[in-house]
């Protein structure tokens, strides 16, 4: 099939940008319906406490205050007190679903306790502060390792322990692998990931039924379908009686994929008082009430042959789950299966304990457990290389899954039970590209010269494999409308990645290449079955459906034109939103005419098509995930006296299959790397022993700014995925996964003269300085 004007694979400009650049974006808080009231939540100031009464009198007497609602007030309007949003798992032994509003116990700072409605947000916040709640503080579980001690207090009064789930992975004969190994390396790691920090927080607007009898809910969510389902279940609504939509999202990065109590409570309250209500999360709330990823503690052992080949890997992971189940076991599960993926490992055993703490619930951030896994595996390989006396790149090249093994079935299963199969790629070649670009071979000379000046340079590397394109499907409908304009409708949800552009490129590729003639509506919850945006999935699953739908519409378009032009479809081409007879000037019909003809006329046969209309709605089902891969190389300078780490250079060579838009791929990678640099050096969600969060402003919790970003060099390679017609893979989380381990590797390398071992992230100056001191460094 000839493409009239290629858009697939081109670095075209985004269709989203004009509105966003001119201040015409419509984010949640930009929606200001007449008569809308503001909501603020009174939130627990304690990590663990019980309460019996909420005295509202003072709050209700304040100016502008309309209502105050507690759990007791909302309960009659709810089918369930608790919001059940966790993915199912037989391993979960404690049921800890979140209440819509706290009932009689609060289990983390920031938990919503009461909802205040007022004429404006400031008045609502004043009133929320004026509520008198008789909290009785209880013992707090603030450390996920201590939480497992038999005499530990419990996160919930109703449970007698804190271990939400224990499960494990095991393949091969691990004991044998260790029994006669030439080398055994042991390390323990404390890997922290902080919070998402989308620049726009969460938010919800609920407008009670008006003329059309339909409740309208707008939410800054990555999963509008899931929200609609939850609202229907929780509020007892018929799906026809509610419309859920997403405005422009000011970033997502994972946590917005969960349905939250505030969304249910605000909607229930709007129905109760019959007025539009809006709640917009402020930054402090984002720190205390939006899901985070936080802490994983790993104890690991690796067994190796004398030549550096890995014989086996075993260990244990303790994962901080927070106080409630907001998503399920997917993060520790993802971490556990990701550890051995890039390498040939015949024996693996990992025991996982998922532990409750009195902290805000944990749910996926960009990477969803994979960055921690890469940190652990890559640190272990560095330790092994040091023990054996090998170059860090050589031990990796020796163990990486090779191109001739593809597709490579791993003895691990996805959470849905299908086998993990690495589908394509040449991992050693990708690593070689990264090393070459970063000047790995020449680095020792640079390092030596710097050291002669008293400067400590280091270089480090890390490989990753990213599971992308989580199935099973996403609906995409393509229609040439009566006006000639192409409408693409999908359940795929945009959060800033360029989803609309991606889909427009894939559709335009089949339909003449004019992206300006395409409207993309994402986040559809009326006619599109699907799931939304997470897990680097949408280019794969929505992309596959868009491609199929566009191909079908193309066939129909040509069939109708062939009939009307009395020509063979093979002699037709699409030019400037018309279908034209090749090489014959003036013999063409505009899309609008063809769309009109395709609707048919009473009493006449349809022109060349069996079903009316130029439309197709498709759900290409893809159960297996497709795996992107890559290698990061970081070069740093470390000041051993202050512990400061300065990034000098950063290279990422990667392979995400065929790229729909290389410029957008770069954008995803650059953003991911910035987030990874934050995880490596700056971002730490700090709690004290009472479970009080100490980092609740952007002055305490440090995001990377332009000043900290090194020049980043990206090297693209494309190994098409065999799992979908376009050969695409996901890339949204690729940049974040190898970044912290590459930087840790570089810092350890820089401080090699002191014999420092890096086993935690983030590497704050204090952490680095402490490591130097503990290693006996005189500096």
């Amino acid at each position, binding site marked *: 099939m000839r493409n009239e004007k290629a858009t697939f694979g081109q670095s075209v400009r985004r269709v989203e940008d004009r509105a966003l650049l001119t201040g015409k974006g419509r984010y949640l808080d930009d929606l200001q319906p007449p008569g809308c009231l503001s909501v603020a939540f009174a939130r627990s100031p304690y990590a663990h406490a019980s309460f019996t009464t909420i005295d509202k009198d003072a709050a209700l007497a304040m100016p502008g205050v309309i209502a105050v609602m507690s759990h007791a007030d909302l309960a009659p309007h709810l089918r369930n007190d608790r919001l059940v949003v966790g993915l199912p798992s037989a391993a979960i032994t404690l049921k800890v679903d979140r209440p819509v509003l706290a009932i009689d116990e609060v289990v983390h700072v920031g938990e919503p306790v009461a909802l205040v409605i007022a004429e404006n947000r400031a008045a609502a916040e004043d009133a929320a502060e004026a509520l008198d709640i008789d909290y009785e503080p209880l013992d707090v579980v603030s450390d996920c390792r201590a939480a497992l001690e038999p005499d530990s207090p419990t996160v919930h009064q109703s449970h007698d322990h804190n271990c939400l789930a224990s499960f494990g992975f095991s393949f091969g004969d691990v004991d044998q692998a260790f029994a006669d190994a030439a080398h055994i390396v042991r390390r323990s790691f404390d890997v922290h990931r902080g919070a998402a920090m989308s620049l726009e927080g969460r938010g919800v607007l609920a407008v009670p039924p008006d003329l059309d009898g339909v409740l309208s809910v707008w939410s800054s969510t990555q999963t509008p379908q899931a929200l609609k389902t939850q609202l229907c279940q929780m509020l007892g609504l018929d799906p026809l009686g509610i419309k859920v939509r997403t405005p422009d999202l000011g970033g997502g990065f994972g946590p917005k994929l969960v349905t939250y109590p505030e969304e249910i409570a605000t909607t229930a309250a709007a129905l109760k008082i019959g007025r539009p209500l809006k709640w917009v999360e402020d930054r402090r709330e984002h720190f205390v009430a939006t899901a985070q990823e936080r802490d994983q503690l790993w104890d690991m052992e690796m067994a190796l042959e004398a030549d550096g080949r890995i014989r086996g890997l075993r260990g244990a992971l303790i994962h901080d789950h927070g106080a409630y189940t907001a998503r399920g076991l997917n993060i520790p599960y993802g971490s556990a299966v990701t550890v051995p993926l890039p390498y040939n490992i015949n024996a693996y055993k990992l025991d996982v304990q998922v532990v409750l703490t009195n902290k805000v619930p944990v749910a996926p951030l960009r990477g969803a457990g994979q960055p921690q896994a890469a940190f652990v595996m890559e640190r272990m390989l560095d330790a092994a290389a040091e023990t054996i006396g090998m170059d860090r790149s050589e031990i990796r090249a020796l163990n990486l899954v090779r191109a001739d093994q593809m597709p490579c079935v791993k003895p691990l299963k996805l959470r849905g039970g299908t086998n993990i199969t690495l589908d394509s790629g040449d991992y050693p070649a990708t690593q070689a590209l990264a090393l070459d670009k970063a000047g790995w071979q020449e680095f020792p000379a640079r390092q030596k010269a710097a050291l002669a000046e008293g400067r400590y340079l280091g270089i480090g590397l890390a490989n990753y494999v990213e599971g992308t394109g989580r199935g099973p499907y996403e609906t995409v409908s393509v229609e040439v409308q009566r006006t000639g304009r192409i409408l693409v409708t999908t359940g795929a949800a945009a959060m800033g990645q360029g989803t609309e552009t991606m889909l427009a490129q894939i559709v335009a590729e089949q339909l003449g290449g004019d992206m300006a003639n395409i409207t993309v509506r994402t986040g559809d919850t009326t006619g599109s079955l699907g799931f939304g945006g997470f897990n680097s999935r949408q280019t794969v699953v929505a992309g596959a459906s868009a491609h199929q739908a566009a191909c079908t519409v193309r066939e129909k378009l040509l069939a109708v034109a062939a009939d009307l032009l009395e020509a063979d479809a093979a002699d037709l081409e699409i030019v400037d939103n018309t279908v034209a007879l090749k090489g014959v000037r003036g013999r063409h019909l505009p899309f609008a005419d063809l769309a009109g003809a395709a609707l048919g006329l009473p009493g006449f046969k349809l022109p060349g098509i069996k079903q009316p209309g130029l439309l197709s709605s498709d759900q290409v089902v893809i159960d297996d995930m497709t795996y992107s891969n890559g290698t990061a190389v970081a070069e740093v300078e470390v000041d051993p006296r202050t512990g400061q780490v300065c990034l000098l250079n950063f290279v990422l060579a990667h392979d995400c299959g065929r790229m729909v838009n290389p410029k957008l791929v770069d954008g995803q990678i650059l953003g991911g790397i*910035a987030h990874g640099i934050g995880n490596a050096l700056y971002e730490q969600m700090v709690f004290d022993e009472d479970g009080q969060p100490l980092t609740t402003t952007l002055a305490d919790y440090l995001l990377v700014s332009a000043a900290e970003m090194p020049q980043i060099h990206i090297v693209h390679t494309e190994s098409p995925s065999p799992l979908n017609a376009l050969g695409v893979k996901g890339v949204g989380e690729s940049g974040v996964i190898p970044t912290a381990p590459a930087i840790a590797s570089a810092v350890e390398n820089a401080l090699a003269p002191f014999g420092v071992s890096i086993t935690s992230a983030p590497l704050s100056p204090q952490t680095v300085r402490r490591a130097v001191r503990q290693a006996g460094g005189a500096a």
Partner: protein
Amino acid sequence: MERHPLNLTVNGKPYAVETEFRKTLADTLREDCGLTGTHVGCEHGVCGACTVVVEGKAVRSCLMFAHQAEGMEIETVESLEKEGELHVLQEAFAEHHALQCGFCTPGFLMLVKGAVERGEELSDAELRHLLSSNLCRCTGYQNIIRAVRAAIDTFKEKASAVPEAAR
């Protein structure tokens, strides 16, 4: 809370509103002037999403009360596009993929607008220092840096293309 009359001049247009003394300029622009292009990201002066230009200087509109801005010239992102034509800075951001979710973008545009329009010769370190005033969670900044550089160059070219007499 008592509201007090206030006259603001935003993008050359007068706005007569009534607000509490405690209301920030950011909230007033958004809620009382209907100019929702200015975004509120942290409300404590760190992220810079709310950056607007007041009397020629980039300021955090979340750290300024609206009543403090009375009588001053305020410019917001809505002023950049003129008669359907994008500002060179907006063009450069689109061309270099310097925005993703777009939430921080108006703040960045207003932060660097002055430097672009003055054709400032900024070293790489100076440009990074300027841009480090604001936070972006999507782009990793590299494309923002590229876009601002390109915009400075384009603006200078355009300015030098204007005949002397017309300046």
